[in-house]
């Protein structure tokens, strides 16, 4: 996202917040045709309180006034909103760029043509496996074919540099070169992001998050590719291995990042949909700008952080304690180590809180008629990726997950 030239001094500035977010995620709907097992917003069914077209336009007007350069639109599947394309046009006409995430279901050849014609719209196709077997185990049957058809339509329409967005999991962490090859085949750019224990992701995190050795391999792979591969700054906890990855390398929650959800609730970050991180609502008097500037929650996040248990660690200046949401939804204190701390402190911290209640994600919009498989590991063995035995037997063990 940024030039490598971001100096420590600048990062210090960002810790205290900006006049407007740099990176704003706006989930337009909780409705989705898929039911991905790790969906960070537990999407499926539309929320009847969803912002109307007029309310969405008012938010865009505000973003223009605040000079938010672009929004990352997601969901749910945003393209299933009947007014989606109108809202994209409205945003770009008001000089608010749009990057939207989609599973590809509505990216027809005709739509791809019109998207390719706009400088102000970027498209991000979600793909969580370089093969159909790995992808569909997480995203559902047929989703790989849908995504690849969308990519082909974009490439044929001449859309260069669209994004292929991959959530790195234990199942796909060994496919990084294959993802890169897919991106190159379609003239796209690869984007890798971190699996968070948010939304339905909380239910599958223990089984799906990369192993310690996969994390190390991922870090080395990313360092070798520099800015060729985007990460949305999501792997800053890996900076503790040594050199930082390109990007700001800090938790931007409430400082440079936030989320507007489909009903207008504003959260500190897209991975923190929980009342503890709810700053306000765009329908409140003063709208989004007032929430961003005046919310007590955001003011707290912008105050200097203590570092807590991590303060004495030699890597603290690199990783800054890692991801707030990952800590929260794995039951760890916010001022301690990240559950995937590369020094292993997170695993020890989790062992220490084993058995204690863990906060549950706020709101569940999952399809009722189509139960979400909570464990892809428990499906019968068959052709497909190597199945990892669930850690269930170890759940009560204080050393669960501990690897010396």
């Amino acid at each position, binding site marked *: 996202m940024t030039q490598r030239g*971001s100096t420590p001094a600048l990062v210090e500035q960002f810790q205290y917040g900006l*006049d407007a977010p740099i990176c704003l995620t706006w989930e337009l709907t909780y409705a989705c045709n898929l039911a991905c097992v790790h969906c960070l917003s537990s999407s499926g069914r539309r929320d009847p309180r969803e912002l109307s077209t007029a309310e969405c336009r008012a938010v865009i007007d505000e973003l223009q006034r605040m000079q938010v*350069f672009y929004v990352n639109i997601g969901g749910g599947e945003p393209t299933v909103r009947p007014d989606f394309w109108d809202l994209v046009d409205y945003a770009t006409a008001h000089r608010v*760029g749009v990057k939207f995430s989609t599973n590809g279901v509505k990216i027809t050849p005709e739509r791809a043509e019109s998207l390719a014609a706009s400088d102000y719209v970027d498209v991000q196709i979600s793909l969580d496996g370089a093969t159909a077997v790995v992808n569909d185990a997480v995203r559902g049957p047929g989703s790989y074919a849908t995504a690849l058809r969308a990519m082909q339509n974009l490439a044929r329409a001449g859309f260069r540099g669209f994004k292929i967005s991959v959530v790195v999991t234990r199942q796909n962490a060994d496919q990084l070169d294959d993802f890169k090859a897919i991106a190159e085949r379609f003239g796209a750019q690869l984007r890798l992001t971190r699996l968070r224990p948010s939304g339905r992701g909380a239910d599958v995190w223990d089984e799906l998050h990369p192993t310690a050795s996969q994390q190390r391999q991922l870090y080395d792979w990313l360092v070798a590719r520099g800015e060729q591969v985007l990460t949305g700054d999501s792997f800053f906890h890996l900076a503790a291995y040594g050199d930082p990855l390109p990007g700001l390398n800090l938790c931007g929650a409430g400082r440079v990042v936030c989320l507007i959800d489909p009903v207008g609730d504003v959260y500190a970050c897209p991975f923190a949909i929980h009342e503890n991180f709810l700053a306000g609502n765009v329908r409140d008097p003063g709208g989004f700008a007032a929430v961003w500037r005046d919310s007590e929650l955001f003011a707290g996040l912008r105050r200097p952080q203590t570092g807590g248990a991590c303060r004495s660690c030699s890597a603290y200046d690199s990783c800054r304690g890692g991801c707030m949401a990952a800590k929260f939804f794995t039951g760890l204190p916010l001022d301690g180590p990240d559950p995937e701390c590369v020094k292993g402190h997170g695993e020890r911290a989790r062992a220490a809180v084993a058995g204690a209640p863990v906060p549950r994600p706020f709101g569940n919009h999952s399809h009722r008629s189509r139960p979400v498989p909570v464990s892809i590991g428990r499906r019968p063995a068959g052709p497909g990726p190597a199945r990892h035995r669930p850690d269930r037997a170890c759940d009560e063990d204080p050393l669960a997950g501990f690897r010396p």
Partner: protein
Amino acid sequence: MAESFDLDRPWQLHPQVSVRPERFGALLYHFGTRRLSFLKSPALLTVIRELGDAPSAREACLRAGLAPAELPAYAAALQTLASSQMIRPREPA
């Protein structure tokens, strides 16, 4: 980065770039390259604002109140912005 910046020709902000002032300076976003940059001082923001009207980048720097001794550092910053297409040469009027 070995390339040196031509302070004596006219420059302009790229038309696809938006500038947002912040306490530390400003944020720049290029809609064409979809890249973000930072101006790390308010004075550099003033230089950027003066660029389009000044006959040269040197003149823009002086209008921003910079001392001649500060010019090399600012030329380096401008070169960085030029290499990421945030600013570009302008034809003399």
